[in-house]
């Protein structure tokens, strides 16, 4: 007892977040008299201070002791400390011992139950709770119920209705209900769910027929919905209709499920005139009642009814007229397009009907005089036109499409500039700090920009000209300046930049979207594949956060399942458990684990083989051996059944496209068709099939296995080692190579072939990427020693040659994936040719225009005074890189002047345009801050037209950086 009192200050220090203080107290007390409990608390303090290994050692030392050293307090505290360190198994062990010491202690039994739950050990959990149900005659909790829930957790989510364990649990619940132990909706909801899974709505209705039971669902609308749905399930149409009506009239006049159910019942009854009439009366009542006339439900319900009504050759007149009325009423709402979409697509069944509908809407918008409202209606109209496929070649000429895109952007910019100005005035007029800088509301007409972007991307696909992509990016960047909180702008930019290989900007955008926690699993695919290919250093932070998130997830979900038991939140147990399964089998997680191994191999390898005069590659042997032996086999498991069980958790709906039926998903085609991004690797959720993903991950893992086996099983000779190293760094480490091989393989199997040229071009690009990657890696501050550029270039050239040698070697080996690309040999030759050609071209064109590069900060003045080149000449420069300034020529001279000046002032980026002098240029120049930031900062005050032009210039510069890195 004395001890307990003396422990109080320690607990206080620990609870108060002062582990250091606690440690001091403990050490002092231990000097006087050691005790097990003190050691355990010391472990806790150490763990909180970050010395988990030391803490764990202490705990393990104590836990091996026997009573009386191990009294209940010690066991309980140990359990807690182990739990906090995430050592569930040891924690459970302590809980087991605590309960075995004294089985009458119900609290100890419950704690043990939670421990099993935390560990996810369902078999033991079930066994234990069964014992508990017999042991405690006046139980604190309903252990039979807990047993039923534990059994339920073991039923697969896709189990058939006849699954015996479902039957068993339903019997248990039946008994619980019969004995009056079904106390609240949490138990009832699980029971109903079981019956639903067993396909027994009749039984569910029987249980709910007691009003005491039904009233456990406290919210009337939820109760009515449940009942109505069940009556519908057992085909008691009239009863269901009555309940749906009640729900609508007494509670929620805008509840779509009720309308949908109501109309479905009418349909099932065969559209009896009286039913239809009664519904119509109800709808008309709502539509005209002042209180409910703004509800969308009653109007859309009328369309829904008309939509499924059997029609006797009267055409689609009636429904078209209803949809037009709906547009009149709700066209100013952002959701109008989503509301009408299914009905338009179903009932406007000819091109002509669609065109006419779109035209009529446009007519209608012209009649709206208020300018803001007009823009809202116009936006809905344009979205609908896009959904109906009117922005396609069959309806409009290229010129008309471009002019429309132009109009859309101008409309938005004019309105947005006005809005931004007004907001600024408003902010300045209000007391300081009382109005936030950005209220986060989407500017009116924002979606017009997105439609314009999609039009441009369509043009790009058709013409294969990259200028449209640059234009799209420029438009989005400009719009983002006006509306920084619009995440759709950012998402679109993110995709485009990633596909262009401009990973720095892409990863900046990724950061600015604050993608975190579960979003890492659902959204990181947008950038991750491209980042892995083009710039592993940028991919690394993303993969690290993905791993961190997943590591946390398993512990948290299981802890929460235990919490659900303790708080009686039974309806959530299954839900949370399913989430855990879904995350555990995440494809993103699995491939991240695999890619991380490659990272570790490349980034932390003590030598980089492409750098001449490096130490003996034998140094690498112990490193890889260690990596290989530390790798869990499931991370490189390449068995098909394992890989096929992975789940794609990507959220593919988050990007707004209003894609017409006739179009394939736009983001797929960005990859598949456009020459700029013909690497099929970045498709992922946007079009790559699961089959392909399985193949790709399989090849990645096989590669790892190959490397590991080579190092572990045999002790390769020095030159063999060097070959393997080259192969890791140059080719095998680049996911895209595996990826294109994976795609090839699937195509081979399915007989579906891409054109040979596309595949060939892909492969060429992959070689480029290999080179870029080596460059990027060497440029990392913590990477291998920074080399001078001449050395680097020599290394790259040598790398290409080495690769040739490698490929030959690989071909000679049997049973290796590389054999999949027999044409690799000639492709590398192409690369070499291309490199030389491009370098000369760039050099010749740019030489005359670039001001002398200042050698130091003092040279600034002289550089700034350099005469800007004439506009027409600049046009020529830009044209040489395939970029035309459509409609912006008047701004170009000014803007480029500004760019050149500002760049000269800050100096580094311009080195990329400067005449290439190997003697004076170092790889450092490749690491300078983004050109974009520089330009953006320098010209943030200019007018929007100029910013637009600037963004295009910036893209050119960006392309130059890439080109430089690839070809330079």
């Amino acid at each position, binding site marked *: 007892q004395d001890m307990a009192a003396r422990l109080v200050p320690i607990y206080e220090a620990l609870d108060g977040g002062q582990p250091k203080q606690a440690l001091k107290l403990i050490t002092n007390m231990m000097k006087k008299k050691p005790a097990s409990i003190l050691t355990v608390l010391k472990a806790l303090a150490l763990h909180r201070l970050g010395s988990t290994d030391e803490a764990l050692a202490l705990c393990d030392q104590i836990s091996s002791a026997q009573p009386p050293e191990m009294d209940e307090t010690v066991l309980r505290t140990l359990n807690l400390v182990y739990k906090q360190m995430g050592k569930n198994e040891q924690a459970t062990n302590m809980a087991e011992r605590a309960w075995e010491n004294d089985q009458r202690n119900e609290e100890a039994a419950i704690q043990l139950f939670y421990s099993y739950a935390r560990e996810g050990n369902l078999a033991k959990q079930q066994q234990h709770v069964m014992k508990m149900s017999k042991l405690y005659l006046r139980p604190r909790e309903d252990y039979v119920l807990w047993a039923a829930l534990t059994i339920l957790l073991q039923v697969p989510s896709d189990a058939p209705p006849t699954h015996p364990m479902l039957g068993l649990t339903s019997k248990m619940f039946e008994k619980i209900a019969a004995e009056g132990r079904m106390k609240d*909706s949490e138990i009832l909801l699980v029971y109903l769910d079981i019956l639903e899974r067993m396909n027994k709505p009749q039984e569910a209705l029987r249980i709910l027929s007691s009003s005491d039971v039904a009233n456990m669902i*406290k*919210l*009337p609308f939820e109760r009515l919905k449940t009942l109505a749905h069940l009556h519908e399930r057992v085909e008691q149409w009239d009863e269901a209709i009555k309940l749906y009506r009640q729900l609508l009239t007494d*509670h*929620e*006049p*805008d*509840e*779509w*499920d009720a309308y*949908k159910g109501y109309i479905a019942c009418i349909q099932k009854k065969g559209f009896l005139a009286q039913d239809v009439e009664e519904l119509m009366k109800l709808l008309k009542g709502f539509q005209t009642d*002042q*209180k409910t*006339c*703004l*509800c*969308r*439900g009653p109007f*859309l319900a009328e369309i829904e009814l008309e939509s499924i009504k059997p029609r006797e050759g009267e055409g689609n007149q009636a429904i078209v007229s209803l949809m037009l009325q709906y547009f009149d009423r*709700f066209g100013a*709402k*952002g*959701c109008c397009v*989503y*509301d009408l*979409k299914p009905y338009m697509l179903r009932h406007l069944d000819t091109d002509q009907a669609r065109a006419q509908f779109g035209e009529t809407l446009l007519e209608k918008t012209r009649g709206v005089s208020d300018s803001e409202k007009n823009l809202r209606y116009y936006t809905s109209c344009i979205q609908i036109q896009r959904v109906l496929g009117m922005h396609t070649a069959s309806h409009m000429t290229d010129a008309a499409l471009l002019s429309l895109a132009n109009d859309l952007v101008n409309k938005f910019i004019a309105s947005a500039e006005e809005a931004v100005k007004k907001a600024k005035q408003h902010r300045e007029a*209000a007391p300081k*700090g*009382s109005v*936030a800088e950005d209220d*986060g509301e*989407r500017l009116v007409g924002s979606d017009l920009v997105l439609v314009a972007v999609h039009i441009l991307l369509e043009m790009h696909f058709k013409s294969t000209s990259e200028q449209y992509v640059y234009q799209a990016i420029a438009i989005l960047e400009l719009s983002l300046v006006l509306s920084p*909180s619009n*995440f759709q702008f950012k998402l679109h930019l993110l995709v485009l930049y990633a596909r262009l290989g401009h990973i720095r900007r892409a990863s900046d955008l990724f950061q600015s*979207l*604050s*993608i*975190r*926690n*579960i*979003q890492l*699993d*659902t959204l990181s695919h947008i950038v991750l594949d491209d980042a892995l290919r083009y710039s592993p250093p940028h991919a690394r932070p993303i993969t690290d956060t993905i791993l961190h998130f997943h590591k*946390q*997830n398993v512990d*948290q979900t299981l*802890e*929460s399942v235990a919490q*659900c038991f303790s708080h009686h*939140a039974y*309806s*959530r147990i299954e*839900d*949370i458990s*399913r*989430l855990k399964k879904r995350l555990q089998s995440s494809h993103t997680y699995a491939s991240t684990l695999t890619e991380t191994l490659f990272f570790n191999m490349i980034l932390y390898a003590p030598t980089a083989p492409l750098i001449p005069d490096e130490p003996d590659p034998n140094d690498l042997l112990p490193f890889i051996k260690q990596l290989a032996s530390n790798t869990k086999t499931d991370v490189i498991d390449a068995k098909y059944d394992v890989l096929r069980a992975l789940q794609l958790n990507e*959220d593919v*709906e*988050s990007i707004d496209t209003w894609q017409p039926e006739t179009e394939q998903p736009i983001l797929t085609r960005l990859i598949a068709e456009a020459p700029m991004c013909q690497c099929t690797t970045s498709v992922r959720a946007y079009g790559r099939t699961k089959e392909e993903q399985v193949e790709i991950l399989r090849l990645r893992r096989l590669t790892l296995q190959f490397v590991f086996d080579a190092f572990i099983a045999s002790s390769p000779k020095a030159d063999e080692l060097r070959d393997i190293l080259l192969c890791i760094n140059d080719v095998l480490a680049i996911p895209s190579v595996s990826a294109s091989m994976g795609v090839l393989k699937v195509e081979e199997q399915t007989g579906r072939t891409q054109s040979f040229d596309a595949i060939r071009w892909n492969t060429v690009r992959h070689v480029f990427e290999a080179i870029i990657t080596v460059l990027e890696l060497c440029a990392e501050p913590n990477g291998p020693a920074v080399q001078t550029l001449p050395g680097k270039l020599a290394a790259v050239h040598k790398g290409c040659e080495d690769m040739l040698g490698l490929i030959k070697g690989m071909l000679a080996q049997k049973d290796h994936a590389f054999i999949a690309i027999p044409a690799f040999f000639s492709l590398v030759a192409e690369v070499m040719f291309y490199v030389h050609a491009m370098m000369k071209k760039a050099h010749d064109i740019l030489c005359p225009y670039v001001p002398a590069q200042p050698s130091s900060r003092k040279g600034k003045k002289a550089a700034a005074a350099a005469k800007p080149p004439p506009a027409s000449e600049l046009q020529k420069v830009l044209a040489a890189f395939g970029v035309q300034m459509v409609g912006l020529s008047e701004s170009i001279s000014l803007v480029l002047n500004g760019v050149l000046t500002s760049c000269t002032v800050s100096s580094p980026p311009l080195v990329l345009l400067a005449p290439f002098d190997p003697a004076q240029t170092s790889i450092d120049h490749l690491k300078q801050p983004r050109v974009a930031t520089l330009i953006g900062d320098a010209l943030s005050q200019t007018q929007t037209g100029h910013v637009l032009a600037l963004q295009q210039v910036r893209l050119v510069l960006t392309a130059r950086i890439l080109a430089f890195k690839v070809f330079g």
Partner: protein
Amino acid sequence: NKSRGRGTMTSLRRFRCDDLFKYNNINLDPFTETFQLNFYFHYMSQWPDFLFMAESPDKRPMGYVIGKAEGKDELWHGHVTAVTVAPEYRRIGLADRLMHLLEDISEQSYNGYFVDLFVRQSNSIAIGMYHKFGYTVYRTVLDYYSGEENALDMRKALPRDKLKKSIIPLKHPVTAADIEW
């Protein structure tokens, strides 16, 4: 029926874990926080009936609400932890409907005396909206948001608080340490 007279048209149902995989059209909004999983689990395991999702006819997530019940005796009340609506479903009264739902839960499922919420003092749009929904400022909490910005504690009395005692404004601001829960 509290005159829900606007165009929300939605299917209201309990928020499920699966929704976390597809709520990005709501959560990418910079003013909507994407919490750690633990946060959602904490609410689900203690107030399983206090999380609701609004889904459109074509099954797009429209918005959701997360709340809880807490406080002792006459301070027993519902709390609005998060209410958020996707950009494309704004201006149709959905926030209003979600708030009503939360009040219904606080009243019918938890029998609370009032509903409260915290809002940044600078968020004039939200404050105006809550005023419209019948909330009044009960007190100012100094430096509530990471010590940088004050919060307004706004309340709305439920029928159980017949005399509307819970919403009589405090005369002086309080600090975060003074909050009862």
